[in-house]
């Protein structure tokens, strides 16, 4: 029995590739036939037992999407995506809906164990983290729910939230990222299948870190998850997101949405380690990652901070943003993006200052190696009423080798005379002098590069929760293997 299970989780990274999450879980799946039309959307909605209002909303989004054009302004080159060739729903077949972790399919639990994601509550970790595990189109397990419920914290899959907490979902879904927002967000609104839902009630400091772990497994399936986080007055939550996908020769589409609503005096810290399969060294395969992440600081003194470490995906299109509506609200964006081989990333942030005395801070560190290309694209907008708004932006790029590219595209739109905006940008190369200095002390070349790169990213990494930071540092080293010499 044990052996059989071993065989089910196939290791396909025998090619000597360094992407250690590239295995495929062979599990029977319930998959909707490829293609996208109103019927497919009805089918998905039906499979999920959704209320009528949600189906209506999806169909409206789909109709709107049909009239939209895929954006081409990003500095990205990729083969045209055939949206009709993809399947929009794939869920591992489970005989009965699991009521507890004990009932979750063993193959799924094994998959997450192999990925290093603890789904067993009895495992005592240094810092306890509650996990929502999303496998292809569905959430397969959410841990520590009972413990969180004691304080009124709701942490569940968004499908469940639609059923159990319809008022909250209906009130906030699409309120930060409306379906009309952009092409990929609109597509997501029409076909999103699962994701996480978090509600932190008034005055509650969430007692543990919450985490969602996304896994794309099925072939030729798009993953469209949607996360909604609501931090009510005077609350706090730290949220982590991780992602991996099998190593496949075909490109996989991932178009997600994260919406965060932050009310009076509340604070949300959102950390991501994005490690989707980046494709092989010649650029074959890999995930197309088109993500819309946005936080609305609606309350006074509300605060949101995005920290991201982006090492994966063949193509990344992602701009986690903050809409600073409440007076004295603040937004932060800390980002490390690493591209190697043929990876392309166009990433950055938007800080929209609307309320008075709003502040924002952007620290972006881009590292390019191999034949990769990277663009920082950022927007700082100060509305006429945003008196005394302040922004500080720092964009640093580090180049390794001579065949990669790095670009910085900062937009600043200021419509208020009292605003103070600062922008600093640097581009540097790992110098031969630095490398020799390390080597002359006995440190090997690859280790020296990772030491220098980690030093370069330090300002961002220190904003990640401890365990996440360690994982991220390891990932950075793996991503850069073979980039020198």
């Amino acid at each position: 029995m044990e052996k059989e299970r071993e065989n089910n989780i196939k290791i396909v990274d025998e090619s000597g590739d360094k992407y250690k999450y590239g295995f495929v879980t062979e599990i029977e799946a319930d998959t909707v036939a490829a293609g996208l039309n109103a019927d497919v959307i009805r089918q998905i909605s039906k499979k999920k037992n959704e209320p009528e209002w949600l189906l209506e909303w999806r169909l409206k989004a789909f109709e709107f999407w049909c009239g939209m054009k895929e954006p081409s302004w990003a500095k990205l080159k990729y083969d045209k995506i055939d949206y009709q060739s993809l399947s929009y729903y794939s869920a591992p077949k489970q005989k009965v809906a699991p009521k507890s972790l004990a009932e979750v399919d063993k193959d799924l639990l094994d998959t997450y164990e192999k990925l290093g994601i603890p789904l067993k509550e009895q495992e005592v970790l240094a810092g306890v983290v509650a996990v929502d595990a999303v496998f292809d189109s569905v959430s397969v397990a959410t841990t520590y729910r009972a413990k969180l419920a004691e304080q009124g914290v709701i942490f569940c899959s968004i499908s469940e939230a639609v059923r159990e907490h319809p008022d909250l979902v209906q009130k906030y879904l699409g309120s930060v990222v409306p379906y009309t927002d952009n092409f990929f967000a609109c597509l997501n609104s029409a076909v999103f299948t699962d994701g996480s839902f978090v509600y932190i009630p008034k005055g509650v400091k969430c007692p543990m870190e919450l985490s969602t772990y996304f896994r794309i497994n099925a072939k030729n399936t798009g993953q469209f998850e949607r996360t909604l986080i609501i931090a009510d007055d005077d609350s706090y939550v730290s949220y982590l997101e991780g992602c991996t996908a099998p190593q496949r020769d075909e490109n996989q589409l991932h178009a997600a949405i994260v919406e965060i609503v932050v009310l009076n005096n509340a604070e949300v810290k959102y950390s991501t380690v994005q490690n989707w399969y980046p494709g092989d060294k010649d650029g074959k395969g890999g995930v197309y990652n088109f993500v819309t992440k946005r936080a609305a600081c609606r309350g006074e003194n509300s605060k949101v901070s995005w920290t991201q470490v982006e090492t994966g995906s063949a193509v990344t299109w992602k701009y986690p943003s903050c809409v600073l509506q409440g007076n004295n609200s603040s937004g932060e964006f800390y980002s490390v993006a690493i591209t190697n081989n043929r990876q392309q990333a166009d990433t950055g942030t938007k800080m929209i200052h609307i309320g008075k005395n709003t502040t924002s801070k952007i620290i972006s560190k881009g590292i390019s190696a191999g034949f990769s290309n990277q663009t920082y694209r950022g927007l700082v907008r100060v509305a006429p009423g945003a008196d005394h708004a302040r922004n500080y932006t720092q964009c640093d790029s580090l180049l390794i080798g001579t065949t990669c590219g790095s670009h910085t595209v900062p937009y600043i739109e200021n419509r208020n005379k009292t605003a103070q905006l600062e922008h600093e940008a640097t581009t540097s190369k790992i110098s031969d002098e630095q490398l020799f200095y390390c080597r002359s002390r006995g440190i090997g070349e690859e280790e020296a590069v990772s030491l220098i790169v980690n030093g370069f990213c330090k300002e961002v990494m220190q904003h990640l929760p401890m365990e996440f930071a360690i994982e991220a540092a390891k990932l950075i080293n793996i991503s850069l293997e073979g980039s020198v010499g």
Partner: protein
Amino acid sequence: MTTPLLEIEDLYAGVDGKEIIKGFNLTINAGEIHALMGPNGAGKSTLSNILCGKPGYHVTSGCVRFKGHDLLKLSAEERAREGLFLSMQYPVEIPGVPITSFLKHAVNAIRKHRGEPELDTMEFIKMVREEGKKLGLDAEMIKRAVNVGFSGGEKKRLETLQMSVLQPVLAILDEADSGLDIDALRVVAEGVNALHTSDNALLVITHYQRLLNYIVPDFVHIYADGRIVKTGGKELALELEQKGYAEFIKEGL
């Protein structure tokens, strides 16, 4: 007879296609301190860079043996792991990398090479702090990033700290006195002297006699136009100070 630590035989080498070292010979045994003195532009730094394996330099002919083995075929990091150390004239800044973690990587690379287990972090930091204190680098300084925002004197102290932590068999001090005031010079020199034993050796490269008042050499070599033109005892440095390089170079050629 024991094998010399370093043997350089009839070395011709240079950089950017230009020959800078022309027929250089030098033998250093364990327990010895050698001073290499020469005017600006004599090629002193070229020599130390070639010995330590800095990329970009070429060797035309001759050979260099370290502990009896061909040094030139080793990479820079392999040379360091074998016990060669260069205290640099212009140490480079490495932003965001704390001194302790930099040194820990270095020490562990060397220990791994020797087949020794990695050091315990807490003990290691304690040791670095104690060594730092002796050199006038306080605990706050040691937490900072490698050479970032350091004054010339602080950089030289940090080079000496690295030497004391890495415990090389042969240390090359390239202008270890440049940018140091008298007090700092004494601290650095004391630090270096404390490390000198009968098992290791020093090659002190300088163009002033000043440093040699503190680090007293067994041999002084006058270096000009890519080779040694005269060798003597410590008194040669004093003589040089009085007469100047020009006279010796004329004599030697």
